[in-house]
């Protein structure tokens, strides 16, 4: 049926049964983007997450003034903006369409209402996001250990340029 894509192929939703998936599919609002258009602006509101069903997006963060750090290239099927469900609804990075993108928005407030009502579909999605975050936290903790080691080796001899480069290169924002 046109306008109601299946979430079956999207990794974040693969643990849902048919009924749960349909419940979430009812929330989908079509939102297409041309190459170069912005899905999220860093620091801007993140009132919905996007399920991307075709196309590619790029993720950037303005770490240094006048320079945008490329963080990731993501291909359909995938989801962006899901962190906003768990934190303040503010985008930590910009997401821009690299090709034309076919996407579907899910309203943050409606999703959170489902979660408050103990909807199994919403609960399972958050559980999956949590699992991904736990593994990302583990990798982050290793990066921190590396930074601490460098700073404790010889704090006064730390070359600021080298150290800054390393932070930019190795930190997975």
């Amino acid at each position, binding site marked *: 049926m046109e306008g109601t894509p299946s979430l079956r192929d999207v990794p974040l939703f693969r643990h849902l049964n048919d009924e749960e998936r349909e419940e979430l599919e009812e929330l989908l609002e079509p939102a297409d983007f041309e190459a170069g258009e912005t899905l999220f602006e860093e620091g801007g509101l993140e009132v919905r997450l996007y399920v991307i069903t075709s196309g590619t997006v790029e993720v950037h963060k303005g770490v240094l003034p006048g320079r945008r750090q490329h963080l990731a290239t993501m291909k359909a099927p995938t989801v962006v903006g899901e*962190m906003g469900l768990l934190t303040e609804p503010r985008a930590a990075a910009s997401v821009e369409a690299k090709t034309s993108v076919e996407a579907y928005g899910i309203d943050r407030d409606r999703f959170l209402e489902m979660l408050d009502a103990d909807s199994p579909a919403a609960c*399972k999605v958050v559980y999956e996001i949590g699992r991904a*975050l736990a593994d990302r*936290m583990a990798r982050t903790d290793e990066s*921190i250990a590396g930074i601490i080691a460098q700073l404790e080796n010889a704090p006064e001899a730390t070359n600021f340029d080298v*150290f800054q480069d390393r932070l930019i290169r190795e*930190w997975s924002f």
Partner: protein
Amino acid sequence: MVVIVEEGLKGVRFFEFLTEEEREEFAEGSEPASFGPGETLIEEGRDPGSLFVLTSGRVEVRKRVPGHGDRLLARIDAAEGRTVVGERGLLGESGASATVMASGPVEAIKIPRETFRRMVAEGRPAAFKLSYRIARTLARRLTRLDEEVAEAIRELERRGETDLEAFRDRLITDWAI
């Protein structure tokens, strides 16, 4: 025993969001655990383990730093409020990122990972509420760390009085074990 465990889960901020029945569900799958001085509740690098609610005693959280033995990240005293360690292990697949060791006699309640996973598989709202809570804690810490690092990079660029020691200390607060 369930009663003892249930009492232990009461008054823990981490479990405030659960109803009494939901706390009972966790209590049924949990067990009391005692540790002597020097014994480890959680060992860095080992398989992800269980969540512990500390009900009495003190623990130290330590992390190995390459070339530096280990570094003390935190001291936790249950007398200052019942607190939780090991929450990330319930959700994640990677080994623990720090060691939690008893500094003296420690009493705790253990929610085994298997209990939690079984409750998730059974679709129990209590388990999903706990994962939501853990996920939010992790998301906030990740967001905060990203900002810390971005700010440090900007500070280095400005050649300001970058206090790298302070930066390091901010990175290791609120370590999620």
